[in-house]
């Protein structure tokens, strides 16, 4: 292929980088939207209208995340993503402007195509240009925020402020007139609700120009080496100052202690520190936004983002890295004389021990903040319900809850770490499997829509006949593999069985506390209810097996 100008070459390059994600966004919006519309097509008018509103949200939602494929290419580094191209003989304005325009226009175009298709097929007046323009505005601000700074904190705050402002504006516009007994923006009002004034487009244009100007100025500094350098941190490495916040010597007495030190210092304690910081910041954000009505959603978003951040930061226990779009495990750790199962165990345990208190701290701080939220009655009622449920637990049941919570977090950390490891090892098969899985769900939803309101029940009913056998079979297969590959010793296996037994006992205790009488249930339902008790056993064999897959490729 001959590319006749730098601009075409850069556009082609961006297309190559983002084509898969663009396809995903398009498919998710169209398939998801159509599936929801189809499922509820035989329902009452009100439900059908609601399904159209959900479809609209589904079409908009993928454009809220920024471009993951660019972040992946860039190893999640802050700063201009295509920094390797600083040496290209083009002006900074072109260097910035071309990808910025592309990454701004493409989400708007994807939205337009999806919304137009839904509009034509369903007859609902899905809004086109006004929403597309605001999606473009959000994405141009994302790009400017991400590219203008090499400070992760500023970058994250900037993204949160942008998306918070976007949601607040949408909330303000859509809920301008209250409709009793319904949400305020049913489809029949869309033509008027989304008929934004022309000043909006002027504002969007100004946002675009300002974003472009700021990004060009800041990238010019980075290009000429004036901005502070922070380029060498590989995702998911934490900032070096955060890692070195905790100074304590590496023990030399045993490999296990040294490995615990390594994992604590490199990732565990930074996660905990971020959790504590967010726990402190949440009340501050709530306190600042409390008197300002339109800013309150921002506090809720910040709280949700805090929990999400903890979950995202906490799950890559095996330290999978990305460089130039390639995922790999650290050869440094892989070549240490340490058993794979032990390594997996230590990594999961250390990460879990740090993630759990971080999550608790963030959760408690949000809990406390919600108590003094004004005008959020539904949140208050949820709080009371949870307080009531926990309050009636006996001491023994509370211990069971604590056991389930801790082992549950460890299971989550181990399973996500394992999935990330397998995704690094087998990216193509896993992508195909995920596509097929999502596609089958979409198809199943559409087909079962013919069964009317029983469709959902028909769909979810059989899963209990699949879940439990899948967990059992996966556990048996993985157990056989880890013993065949001599990853797990008998001693470790005994430990795993003990932990699983503790979790199982605690799980059954909580089921009883919730009023579930297993004896009175049909056998399949009882097995399905008990199947989560097998999860610790399954991830205990899955984690070393998956780590072995990336340690010995």
């Amino acid at each position, binding site marked *: 292929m001959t590319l006749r100008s730098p601009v075409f070459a850069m556009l082609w390059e961006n297309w190559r980088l983002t084509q898969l994600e663009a396809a995903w966004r398009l498919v998710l919006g169209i398939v998801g939207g159509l599936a929801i519309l189809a499922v509820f097509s035989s329902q009452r008018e009100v439900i059908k209208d609601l399904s159209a509103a959900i479809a609209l949200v589904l079409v908009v939602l993928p454009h809220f995340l920024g471009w993951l494929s660019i972040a992946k290419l860039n190893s999640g580094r802050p700063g201009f993503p295509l920094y390797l191209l600083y040496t290209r003989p083009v002006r900074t304005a072109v260097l910035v402007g071309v990808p910025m325009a592309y990454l701004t226009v493409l989400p708007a175009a994807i939205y337009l195509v999806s919304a137009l298709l839904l509009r034509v097929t369903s007859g609902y007046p899905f809004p086109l240009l006004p929403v597309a323009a605001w999606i473009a505005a959000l994405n141009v601000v994302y790009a400017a925020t991400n590219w203008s700074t090499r400070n992760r904190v500023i970058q994250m705050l900037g993204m949160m402020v942008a998306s918070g402002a976007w949601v607040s504006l949408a909330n303000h516009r859509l809920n301008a007139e209250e409709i009793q007994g319904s949400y305020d923006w049913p489809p029949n009002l869309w033509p008027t609700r989304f008929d934004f004034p022309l000043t909006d487009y002027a504002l969007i244009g100004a946002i675009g120009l300002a974003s472009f100007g700021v990004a060009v100025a800041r990238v010019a500094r980075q290009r000429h080496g004036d901005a502070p350098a922070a380029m060498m941190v590989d995702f998911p490495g934490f900032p070096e100052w955060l890692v070195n916040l905790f100074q304590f010597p590496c023990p030399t007495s045993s490999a296990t202690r040294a490995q615990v030190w390594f994992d604590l210092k490199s990732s565990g304690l930074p996660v905990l520190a971020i959790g504590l910081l967010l726990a402190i910041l949440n009340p501050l954000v709530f306190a600042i936004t409390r008197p300002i009505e339109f800013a309150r959603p921002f506090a809720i978003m910040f709280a949700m983002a805090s929990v999400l951040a903890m979950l995202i930061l906490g799950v890559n226990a095996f330290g999978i890295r990305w460089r130039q779009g390639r995922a790999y495990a650290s050869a*440094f750790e892989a*070549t240490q004389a340490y058993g794979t199962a032990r390594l997996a165990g230590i990594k999961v345990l250390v990460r879990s021990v740090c993630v759990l208190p971080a999550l608790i701290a963030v959760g408690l701080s949000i809990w406390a903040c919600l108590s003094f939220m004004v005008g959020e009655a539904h949140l208050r009622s949820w709080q009371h319900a949870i307080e009531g449920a926990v309050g009636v637990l006996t001491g023994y049941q509370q211990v069971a809850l604590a056991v389930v919570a801790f082992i549950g977090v460890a299971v989550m950390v181990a399973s996500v770490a394992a999935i990330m490891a397998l995704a690094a090892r087998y990216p193509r098969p896993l992508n195909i499997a995920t596509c097929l899985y999502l596609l089958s769900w979409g198809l199943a939803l559409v087909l079962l829509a013919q069964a009317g309101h029983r469709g959902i029940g028909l769909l979810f009913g059989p899963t209990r006949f699949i879940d439990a056998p899948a967990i059992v079979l996966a556990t048996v297969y993985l157990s056989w593999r880890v013993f065949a590959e001599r990853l797990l010793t008998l001693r470790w296996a005994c430990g795993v069985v003990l932990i699983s037994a503790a979790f199982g006992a605690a799980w059954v205790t909580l089921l009883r506390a919730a009023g579930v009488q297993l004896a009175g249930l049909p056998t399949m339902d009882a097995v399905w209810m008990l199947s989560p008790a097998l999860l610790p056993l399954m991830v205990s064999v899955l984690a070393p097996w998956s780590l072995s897959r990336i340690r*010995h490729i």
Partner: protein
Amino acid sequence: MGQIVIDVNDLSRSFGTKDALDHVSFRANDGQVYGLVGANGAGKTTLLKHLLGLLRATTGSVRVFGLDPVRDPVGVLSRVGYLSEERELPEWMRVDELMRYTQAFHPTWDAAYARGLLETFGLDPSKKIKELSKGMRAQAGLVAAVAHRPELLILDEPSSGLDAVVRRDILDAIVRTVADDGRTVIFSSHLLDEVERMSDHVTMMHHGRVTLSGALDDVRRGYQRSRVRFVEHFDQPPVLETALAMEGGGRTWSVVHSGSLEQFRYSVLALGGEVVESRDATLEEIFLARAGRNRQQVEVA
């Protein structure tokens, strides 16, 4: 003959459609230095990664100290020191933390030796890895790899990033010390003079295959570079038995050839020429002859 430390038998490995290793067999005994040479993409690093268990064999077998490095990583890695080509070290660590961390995995760690090497290299233990230059990272990685006095030292392009003095004096000394202690060193390099200087054995790889392997002296004795003169004028390189590469034109040609000199003289004589002078070929000449411009390519050109 010493004890066999590495035994690679009929090893193949492919990445997608590319055969990175194609039926490679290789053996290494203790107390010897093995140099692995080859062009970029020849399969050197892939072979070394198999020895460390970082890659699984598609077919064939790998045994290090009689153990399978994939099934028994602890058994193998506890006796191995490794310096990777990428010098991948945790950037947040200080040099002394790297030493302490590595020490914890190796009871045989020689702290005095590590300190001495750090001093020799002029590495500040309180410096972070991130702050080190590429060469200094290589030095830090080298200290971490050798300070536990491993039975097998695996160095992937150890010279990359090192300056000439460090390369010639310190690296050579370290490698020699390890070998003299009865331990084994295997290193890959594209610097043929370095391989020639440091190795007892040399293995050449090309397109995932071992094209030549043997004791360095035997290899060098097995190849000569001769200058031949013909009565007749040749526009194309003349076809000579045992010739691997030819340079020159007209009546005078330089030929790298294998086999005995007598046999070569006979084939030159058959074309009406004579061998003007002859000497042992250098490793570089042998490498270029076998992996680079071979006779067929010269003929086509």
